[in-house]
């Protein structure tokens, strides 16, 4: 299969999954008792039955479930997620305005993970079973075991409160790319990237160890290549493929991590908006962010698969 065909086939395969994601998102909120109108009426007992029915009509909550779903999805497809009930703002505006902060945080976390994990993984594989390897394996195990919210609190406690190196909490609004904001980004970025760094390190170590035992490495060494070239040009390139397969999973974990980490650091991104929306029962906002997350993870998976197929042609024949 040519790469183009693979990309086309794989891209088409996400359509049913995206449909499924929208059904789950819709279903979770609409198959449970108590729609937003019921809750609103519970809060304001003086709403009359006629007003209640009119409200249901206006928010598309009357009629059978499948009709409501079609109604909702056709609006969503043109980017209309409805209004935030309390403020009357467009939900899509809210999502777009919070998105850059979360992307900045996620990218920083990713960069941190890669910068730490790849050299550490190479080091551990080359010095297998040495003291350095043992220590880095222990650190990696700690990294995947530490709860990110606690890590965040500990970083605040040590670096902000005792050492005073970093500002404690991010300001609510600030231009994102200012150097000041970068300073605010460091601790949450490290917090969100630690688990991914640990996973990548473990995978790098395993796959490098495997690659180092292969015959092409012996051949490369036998023809007199310096060890540095063998490792960096041959082994590393092949080991990085396994990191690509991990990338989509880690992106999902960074997305989930952003919810918690943004709350810890008071970071004004989508994750904190999500928690605020849940606490204020802003169903439209929660649904929009849920759907957005789902689509984002699907696309991340798609990109990872295509990169994988481009790097390793055997995959295309599966």
């Amino acid at each position, binding site marked *: 299969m040519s790469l183009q065909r693979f990309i086309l086939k794989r891209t088409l395969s996400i359509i*049913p*999954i995206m449909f*499924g*994601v929208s*059904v*789950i998102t819709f279903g*979770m*909120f609409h198959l*449970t008792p108590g729609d937003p109108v019921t809750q609103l009426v519970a809060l304001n007992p003086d709403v009359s039955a006629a007003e209640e029915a009119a409200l249901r009509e206006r928010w598309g909550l009357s009629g059978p479930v499948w009709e409501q779903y079609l109604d909702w999805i056709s609006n969503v497809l043109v980017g209309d997620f409805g209004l935030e009930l309390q403020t009357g703002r467009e939900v899509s505006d809210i999502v777009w305005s919070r998105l850059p902060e979360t992307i900045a945080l996620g990218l920083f976390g990713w960069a941190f993970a890669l910068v730490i994990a790849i050299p550490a993984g190479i080091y551990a594989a080359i010095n297998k079973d040495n003291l350095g390897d043992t220590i880095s394996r222990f650190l990696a*195990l*700690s990294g*995947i*075991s*530490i*709860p*990110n*919210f*606690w890590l965040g*609190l*500990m970083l*605040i*406690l040590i670096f902000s*409160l*005792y050492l005073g190196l970093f500002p*404690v909490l991010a300001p609510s609004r600030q231009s994102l790319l200012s150097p000041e904001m970068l300073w605010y980004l460091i601790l949450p970025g490290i917090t969100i990237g630690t688990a991914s760094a640990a996973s990548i390190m473990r995978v790098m170590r395993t796959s490098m160890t495997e690659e180092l035992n292969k015959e092409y490495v012996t051949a490369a060494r036998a023809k007199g290549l310096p060890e540095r070239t063998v490792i960096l040009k041959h082994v590393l390139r092949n080991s990085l493929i396994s990191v690509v397969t991990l990338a989509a999973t880690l992106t*999902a*974990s960074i*997305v*989930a991590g952003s*919810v*918690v980490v943004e*709350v*810890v650091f008071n970071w004004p991104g989508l994750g904190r908006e*999500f*928690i605020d929306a*849940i*606490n204020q029962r802003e169903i439209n906002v*929660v649904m929009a962010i*849920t759907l957005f*997350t*789902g*689509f984002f*993870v*699907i696309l991340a*998976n798609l990109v990872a698969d295509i990169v994988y197929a481009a790097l390793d042609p055997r995959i295309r024949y599966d």
Partner: protein
Amino acid sequence: MTDRNIHEDRGRIQVSGFDSDRVRDREPISDWTDESSGETVGRWRRGFRKFKRNRSAMGALVVVVVMALASFFARPVEMFGVVVQPFSLAPYDPTTILYLGVDSSVNVYDPPSWQYPMGVDGSGRDLFSRLLVGGRYSLSIGFIVVGLTASFGLIYGSISGYYGGNVDELMMRIVDTIFAFPGLILALIIVAILGGGYWQLVLAFSLFGWAGYGRLVRGEVLKIKENEYVLAAKALGARDRSVVFRHIAPNAMPPLIVLASLNIGSVVIGVAALGFLGLGLDPSSAEWGTMLNATRSTLIQGPGGQIPWWATVYPGAAIFIFVMSMNMIGDGINDALDAQQTGVGRGGED
């Protein structure tokens, strides 16, 4: 005499190093014996022996057992009005506010002392007692959720992998769809809809948590069903159900157990994360994540300008140590069961 012997041996092929006694002890035609039929047991036993030799995994197992016992014996357990467990390791009840009646000299956020080894929390309760009792929530939810999801995933994956075709296609699309959502996000939404509480948390992590096991088991089943013994069972007229659950599913167990042991830690972190976000259990309950949530706002400035680090450090450290131990056990099981596979291959040599 000698002459005669030579005559008898003539024409025979001399084979040296051949132990005829071993051949006589062996059963003819096949090498099946009662002992070798215990193969499945032997496999697990070999894995267990290997696990026992793994020092870090055994150490981690001790930590987990001690934590489980400590939280179980922390306060008396009552079931249906009967005291099942009368011991009480924790000096105070987790909900007792110390300055009301117990010890009027205690203040909110008192630092650790001999009497209160982990200090006092923001509501004047003994942190050590709360920490011990708090283990009950995280640990039991972790094990219940993993038990439920792994069992369901095993059934789901076996069916999907065994039948293949359109059934498999549909079932795996469902799994793909669930995988599009990070587990924590789904759990958050479910708890937001259902409200907090013990069984709500179990449901929140179980409802979609089986997908990973389903995908793993399906992959294993696809490999296993190519084996001759599956074909033999089918040729003997075994029903689908018995082929799947007697011959295929048991062989898919090792990777499932490894994944399950590694997942307990992530469920415990997830439960604590929900508690930390204020969406898990009742805010006054002693669950570790909920305890962290209660002190989050006062981390920055405690009373008198001091930082009450103990209220944040200890509950989080408890989660960390438990999850780390579970992951070490998982790694140990992984190594043990992997070694078992190569051990089978090497069986002929020794």
